[in-house]
Structures are given as C-alpha cells and as structure tokens.
C-alpha cells in the first residue's frame, strides 16, 4: 500500500517537473505581459481581470491583465527551483547540526546544541523576512534562498539528533569503540548509512515547508525580485498596487486573495500548490516508511564511505584550515550581499547628437540636455532677421553650420554668409524640426504625419501611422536614427527611413513633453514613464507617486549621462537596479517660502549640477542650482516667460525671455550675472541653440537673432 503512495507522489511531482520543463511550449503568453483588453465569447471588448473562458485567456487573467495559465505554467520553474534549493540547503544544515548535536559530547556538540536551540527559538518567517529586507528582495531568487534556508532546519536537526543519539547507544558502536575505532571513523561508517532512509522523506517535508513559507512572505508583501508597482487607475492621481512580478506560485497565491469575490485564481494556484505539497509529502513519508536500512553496502555506498572515512582521518590542522577557509568564504559572501549605499553611476557617455550636428533637435540632443560650452565672454555682435510667421521650437545647427528653423508657414535656412532662404511648407508643423542622422529635416504636423525633407524642400519620405491621432510633440531623433514623437495618448517610433517601428499606449493622458532618450539607447523617458526603446513597452517597475499629492514628476537625462527626476522642487538622481528605478540621491533647496509654482524646466549639467527654472506665472523667472554636495544657489533672471537655451558644464545658463516687451538674453552663473542684453526684436522667445561662438534665438513674432561672441573671454 505504501508503495502505491510513493508511486502516486512520484507521479504528481514528476508531472509538475515536466510542466516546468515544458513551460515555453505550453504557456500561450508571456507571463509578465499585461493585456489591457480582450474579447469575450460574444466578441465584445472587456477589460482585465478577464474571467476564465475568455478566448486567448482560457483560465482568465489577474487584475493587471496577466494571463493566469501562462503564469501558472511559468511559475512552476521558480517555485520548484526555490523550494528545491532551499529544501536541499536546509536538509544539509539540519543533518550536519543534528549529527553534531546528537553525536558529540565535547565543545562541538555543545556548540551544535546551542545553535540548534537558537534556531528553534527564532520564528522562521521573521528571520527570513529580516534577511530578505537587509539584502534586498530586488536581488531576486538568491536572497530568498538565503533567507529561507538560514533557519527552519531545526525540525530536521532535532529529528536527526534524536536518531543519532539512538544509534550512538547501539551495541555495535560500543563494540567498535572497544576495538579501538576512532569517533570519526565510527561516525563516517555508521551514521550516514543509518540516516540515509530518512533523507528522501525529510527533503520532501522541507519542500512542503518552504512552499508554505514563500506563500507567507508574499502575503506579507515581500516579493521575489521586489515585486512590481502596477497602476490601477489612469486619472490625474494614479493609485498603484504592489504585486508579485515573478510568477511564483506561493506569491501568486498571496496575490489571489486580493480578489475575494473571484475565487478562480485562488483555486487554480492554490490547487497547484496543494498538489505539489501533497505529492512531495506522499513521496517523502512513503520513502521514510518503506525504505529499508541498507545492510549490504553497494558500490556507491562504499565510495561515499571511503570519502567520509578519508575526511574523518584528516589531521586536525587541516580541519582547522578548512574551517578558516569556510569562515572566510562566509564572511566574503556576507560582505558581497551586505546592503551598501549604491554609487551614483553614470549610464555611459554624455548624450550626443546623431549625425554629428551641433544642435540636432529641440533640447539639442536626444536626451534634451541643452548642453553647450558657453563662451566665457559677452556678446560682440547681434544680427537679426524677421520672417512673416511665428517660429516654432528650437532652431537647428547642422554639422556644416547652416541654421535651420521652422515657422508656421515655411522652413528657413541661414547659411554662414548670412543668406536666409525660405522653403514653403505644404502643412504646418506642430513643433520645431529635428535633423536626421543623414541630414534630413524631419517635421511632424498636427495630424501626426511625419515627413523628411532635404535642403531643397523635396520630400524624401512621408509617414502616416495607421492609428494616428493628434500629434502633441515634435520629433526627437535617437542615437540609432529612430524618430520618436507623441500623439494624444501614445508614443510612436519610426525608423530612420520612415518605416513604422512601434506605437505604444503607455501614456495615461496627453503629454506635450518631448521624449528623452537615455544615451546608451535602451530607454526612453517620457514625463514619468520609463519605456524600452526596443519595443516601446513600459518597464514593469516604474516610479509611483503618492496619490493626493501633486508633485508633477518629470524624468530627466543629465548632460553627464546621469538619470534624474524632478519631483516638486527637488531633483533626485536614480538608476536602474535589476530593472527597477532606485533613487540614489536627493537634492533639494529651501523652496517653501520662495515659490508657489513648480519649475517649468529642469536638467543636469555636464558637470553634474542640477538646475531648475521657475518660469511660469506673470512674475520674474528664477533659476536655482542644486550641486551634488548639497549646496544650492538661486538667481533672478530679470525676465518674464524665460526659457533656458543652453547650460554649460559649470552650471552657467544662457537664458532668454521678455524684458519690457522685447526679447532679451543673459548668461547667469551661480554667483552672478555674466552678461545681459536686450536683443532688439519683438516677441517672446520660443527657442534657441548654441554652437561654438554663436547663439541663435527665435521669437514668436518671427524674429531670428544670431548672437556672436568673442572667441576668447576677457
């Protein structure tokens, strides 16, 4: 009868292992992919959670649209890996401590009994959560394996110690001692052989205990890999819920409780866990009860015994050496795992403009850094032109020095000798143009049609997305030549030759902000979203704002390659750790009494100095600098409706705006004003660019001003 139970247990465990191995072929979806819409049996669109029986999601989905079947199938892998490794580690520790506690009467035995008493006294879940917290659940499975194996083996150790105590009192052990066999020899020859029938059973019981413990940690909100924040509502103050990211059954079970009125996921995931634990219990208890103690050692046993005997004969000094090496390895491991403040690491080189242009798009480069080397001296000459229509966005400065600017009606090209050419545009662009890596001038119109022109005004290519809505931002050219722009609720990417790449609905609402591309070309930051450039998908882990508190977050890429985030009046430096954004530094200034609005522009200079421009409202715009050492500085610009045009590595800022109705510019440093001039053209400043010893400024009254500087300062 017992054999039948062992067989049943083996079949259950075997089937689950097979399911884990076959996951890529069995699972219909990516277990982490979130579907926002599916169609029910009648073909009507429905939102998540999809009920069981939904076409394409036959076992339904969780409330984030993640397919339940795929998560269950893929979940078998981490579940079995985690439970198997933890069970094996616990068994090893339990058997070693148990043998020590049961066999030795000397200091080693006392130590083992003390360790055993400590391990039995400490609540297992508490120790596990403490280790997981201190080492960081974001480090993934390894931390959970360590945390769960550290205690919890005391049951096994007690059982083994009792068993060893019984064996040590057997007549054959006494006979062995009388014949002069050493303790090590007796231990190596008799104990493993007598304990071997227990191992299978204990392993299965440890497996069951680990699985329930992992479920408990998930219930308390400790998720493998740190879990994921998923936005539940798309309104102005989104509420996000933390949930398990890795599809592990124990943690999925904990998540299933959030849907009390929908017991399906609970029954499915809980059923799989119940089956696995029952199977391993059946297998384990059956093995423990039915396996006879090996009396006639086979070849394998002899080899193990020889190895153990050799170990027992190792001289004490060598044993001490092994102990020292083990302690060093443990200390090294602890040092490696110990939490330490993460260093602020640059993500690569400073952002560059594709095609080698001096100013390739609004914000200069794909990161929107506005980085420039401002000439040290003041302006030496102003040259201005007026065109018939308001300019849009920043002008461009091509690699050959030609200035290109777009107005509502035409494209304007200013060459090095001061000739301004005008190319009429067939349709009105929504914002400033960008330069493609091949020199094409790229424009986006309100109807989200993108077109590329050469300098004669000929159209090179034209792109109209199938699902286009109203465009809300101009083009940004990424390092790989891809062109990005936003429509009301989407971000679109097209290839350098004008063919479609992807279109992603990651936005919760309309955004007029430009996408910012991280210099290593992997990520796009848009407002507060982190998006993968490869496929337009949102990273599973994002920054989450507390609801009910308006902090207007904006993700930034510094000119030094660092990642920044402006929240309210602060700038945070963050980086990605295991796919999750982690804030590593915060810079703030005593803003409460000084401002009532949030900054309109922000950035980080090549020298690592964060800057904020408070340009909104009718009053005078102010600049604030936040240095890495915690110091801050502020300056009044003396202008209204001001804009930062360019920022030097030392934090000096070329800022332009309106001063008594006319356009004006100034270079402000943290310690004072370097120069300030009225430009002599009407209107408000809409953009500007800096290259070498000249700056170009555009106004909404159709004014184009070139400011020339002395090559060397005073």
């Amino acid at each position: 009868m017992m054999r039948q139970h062992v067989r049943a247990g083996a079949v259950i465990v075997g089937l689950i292992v097979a399911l884990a191995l076959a996951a890529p072929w069995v699972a219909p979806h990516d277990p982490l992919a979130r579907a926002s819409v599916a169609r029910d049996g009648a073909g009507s669109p429905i939102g998540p959670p999809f009920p069981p029986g939904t076409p394409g999601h036959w076992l339904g989905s969780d409330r984030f649209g993640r397919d339940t079947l795929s998560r269950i199938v893929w979940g078998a892998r981490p579940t079995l890996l985690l439970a198997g490794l933890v069970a094996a580690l616990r068994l090893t520790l339990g058997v070693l401590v148990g043998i020590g506690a049961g066999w030795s009467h000397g200091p080693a035995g006392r130590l083992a009994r003390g360790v055993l008493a400590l391990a039995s006294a400490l609540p297992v879940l508490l120790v596990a959560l403490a280790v997981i917290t201190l080492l960081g659940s974001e480090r993934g499975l390894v931390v959970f394996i360590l945390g769960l194996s550290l205690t919890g083996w005391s049951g096994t150790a007690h059982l083994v110690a009792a068993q060893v105590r019984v064996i040590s009192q057997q007549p054959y052990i006494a006979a062995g001692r009388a014949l002069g066999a050493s303790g090590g020899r007796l231990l190596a020859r008799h104990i493993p052989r007598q304990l071997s029938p227990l191992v299978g059973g204990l392993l299965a019981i440890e497996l069951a205990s680990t699985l329930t413990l992992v479920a408990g940690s998930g219930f308390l909100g400790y998720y493998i890999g740190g879990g994921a924040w998923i936005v539940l509502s798309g309104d102005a103050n989104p509420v996000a819920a933390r949930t398990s990211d890795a599809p592990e059954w124990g943690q999925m079970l904990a998540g299933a409780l959030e849907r009390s009125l929908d017991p399906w996921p609970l029954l499915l995931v809980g059923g799989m866990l119940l089956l696995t634990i029952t199977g391993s219990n059946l297998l384990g208890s059956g093995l423990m009860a039915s396996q006879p103690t090996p009396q006639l050692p086979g070849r394998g046993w002899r080899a193990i015994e020889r190895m153990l005997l050799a170990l027992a004969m190792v001289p004490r000094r060598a044993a001490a050496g092994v102990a020292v090496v083990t302690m060093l390895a443990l200390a090294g491991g602890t040092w490696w795992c110990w939490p330490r403040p993460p260093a602020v690491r640059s993500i690569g080189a400073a952002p560059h403009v594709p095609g080698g242009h001096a100013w390739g798009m609004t914000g200069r480069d794909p990161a929107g850094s506005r980085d420039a080397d401002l000439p040290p001296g003041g302006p030496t000459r102003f040259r201005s032109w007026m065109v018939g229509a308001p300019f849009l966005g920043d002008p461009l400065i091509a690699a050959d020095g030609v200035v290109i600017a777009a107005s509502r009606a035409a494209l304007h090209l200013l060459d090095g000798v001061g000739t301004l050419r005008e190319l009429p545009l067939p349709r009105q662009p929504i914002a400033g143009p960008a330069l493609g890596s091949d020199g094409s001038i790229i424009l986006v119109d309100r109807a989200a049609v993108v077109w590329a022109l050469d300098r004669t005004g000929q159209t090179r290519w034209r792109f109209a997305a199938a699902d286009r809505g109203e465009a809300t931002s101009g083009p940004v050219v990424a390092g790989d030549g891809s062109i990005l722009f936003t429509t009301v609720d989407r971000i679109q990417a097209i290839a350098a030759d004008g063919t479609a790449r992807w279109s992603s609905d990651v936005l919760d609402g309309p955004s007029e902000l430009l996408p910012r591309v991280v210099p290593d070309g992997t990520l796009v930051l848009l407002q507060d979203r982190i998006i993968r450039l490869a496929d337009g998908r949102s990273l599973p882990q994002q920054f989450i704002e507390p609801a009910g508190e308006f902090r207007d977050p904006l993700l930034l890429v510094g000119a030094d390659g660092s990642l920044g985030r402006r929240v309210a009046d602060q700038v945070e430096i963050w980086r990605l750790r295991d796919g999750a954004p982690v804030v590593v530094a915060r810079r703030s200034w005593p803003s409460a009494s000084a401002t009532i609005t949030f900054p309109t522009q922000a950035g980080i200079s090549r020298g690592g100095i964060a800057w904020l421009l408070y340009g909104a409202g009718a009053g005078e715009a102010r600049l604030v600098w936040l240095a890495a050492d915690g110091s801050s500085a502020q300056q009044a610009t003396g202008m209204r409706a001001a804009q930062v045009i360019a920022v030097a590595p030392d934090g000096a800022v070329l800022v332009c705006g309106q001063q008594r109705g006319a356009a004006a510019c100034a270079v402000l440093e943290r310690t004072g004003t370097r120069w300030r001039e009225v430009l002599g053209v009407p209107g408000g400043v809409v953009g500007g660019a800096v290259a070498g010893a000249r700056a170009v400024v555009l106004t909404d009254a159709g004014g184009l001003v070139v400011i020339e500087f002395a090559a060397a300062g005073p």
Partner: protein
Amino acid sequence: MIRAARAVLLIVAAHLAGFAFAVAAAPVHAALRPTLVAPPPVDVPAAYWEHLHTLPTDPRLAAALVALGHSLALLVPALLGAGVLGLWLAGRAVDADGRIAAWAAPTLALGLACSAVFTGSLIISGWFVWAVWGPGEPPLPLRGAGWDRHLILPTLVLGLRAPAQLAQLGATLLAREAQAPFVIAARSRGMPEWRIRRHVARTVAAPLVMALAATAHLMLAELVIVEAMFAWPGLGAMLADALAPARLSDAPPAAGYLAPPVVALAAALLVALGLVIDGLAAVIARRLDPRMVR
C-alpha cells in the same frame, strides 16, 4: 539554572536583534520606495540603551503584552484541538498489529499541505461569496477580536494543519511500538488489550509531547499570517504591521511600520513564547519518560 540563563540571554538577543534589524531596514526600505523619506542615521547602541531605559513605562510594552494575551487566546485552543484531533487520528490510523490504514497516508499528506495562507484565503473568499451571493452575512465574523464567535475562524485556520503533522508522527510511533517485543510478549501472555495500550501510550507519550511542541512552533510561525488575515490584534498582527510594506501607493505605512521598539518587543515575546513551549514540553516529557534525561 544554566538553561534559564540561556533562555533569558536568547530573549534579550532576540530583542536586540529585532531592534537593530528595524533600524537597519528603515533606510533600505526608504531607498527602494521613492515615496518614503529616508530616516536620519541612528546610533543603535545609544538608541537601544534609551529604549531599555524607557521600556517599563513605554505604552508599547503594555500593548505588546495585551497582544500576547490575544495570541495565546488563539494558540491554546488551536493547540489543544490539534492535539486531541491528531491523537484521535493517529489512534484510528493504526490497528492493533501496527498496520497503518490505507486512508492515512493520502489524508495526512493532504492535511499537511493545507497552509494557513491557502486555507485562510479559501475561507475569506468563501465568506465573501456567501455574503454577496448567499443568504446574507455568514454567522461567523471574518475580522476583528472578541472572546466569542470571533475566535472560531482564526483558530480553525491556525489549527488545521497541525493535527495532520501530529497524527503522522503519532501513527508512525504507534505502529513501531505495536510491533515491539514487549507488546508481543504481553499479548502472548494474554494481557488485556487496554493494558497493552496503556503501556504503549506511556512509551510514545514523551515523543508525542515533543511533537506537540514542534507543532506549536509551526503555529507560532503561522501566527503572523493568520492574525494579519483575520485582523486579530495579537503579536503576529503587530509583527505583520511592523514588517509588511503598504500594498497600495496611496496607503500610508502602518503606525508601527519598522518601528524598532515594536519589532524588538514582538520578536522577544515570540521567542520567549517559543522557549516557554520548549521548556514545558521538555519538563513534561521527562516526567513521562525518565529515559529522556541524558
């Protein structure tokens, strides 16, 4: 005396470890959650010393002791129920010749698989389904404390797995003892079956008491989950509040979240409870079986 000193030392160590852990974990948690502000650095020895000085008058100590009472209110009936049911199951599973019944292995394996997270979730889900689609609110309350019907559901969930564990061990012990030479000899000499059972009971009593202690440890481990699930204001819920981060972005962390005194007190009291259980079990086992004194 040495054992008592060691137990006190363990409790103090758990208290200090809980305190140090909460201090160390606070900045780690804050760094990982952008909405939390990192606390200022704490000098652990000084803060711990100060906490020890103010401990006698700290209202959190009184709260923790009240919580301990609430936890015992769940633990004691769950343990007693599990003990009785486990022993009854073990007795039923083994016949006079020491053969284990066919139903025992699968039933007990299934019982062992019923973790508190799963059974508790099922009961909560069933409660809501009953309340919404059934005849009305179920007769047993789901959340909150009270010395009445409130005790039933959490005690049930806490004690559901333990009888299986106890019965499994009890059945194995009974089966082994039923084939012991002294039983065969007694039976061959015509000793009545009830007297043989009494002898067998004496020999298996001590290991069963130790097994009951192990079961109590299992319950202590699950106390955190059961109390958090049913909002039972015991030590487990206190610890769960102190350790569990908020699940919703707009939910503020619980009042005692990573508060060093709360974590320290809950850890120390749980360890003390475990040591008391172990000590009691050892004393009783030795009274029952003098061979255990070694």
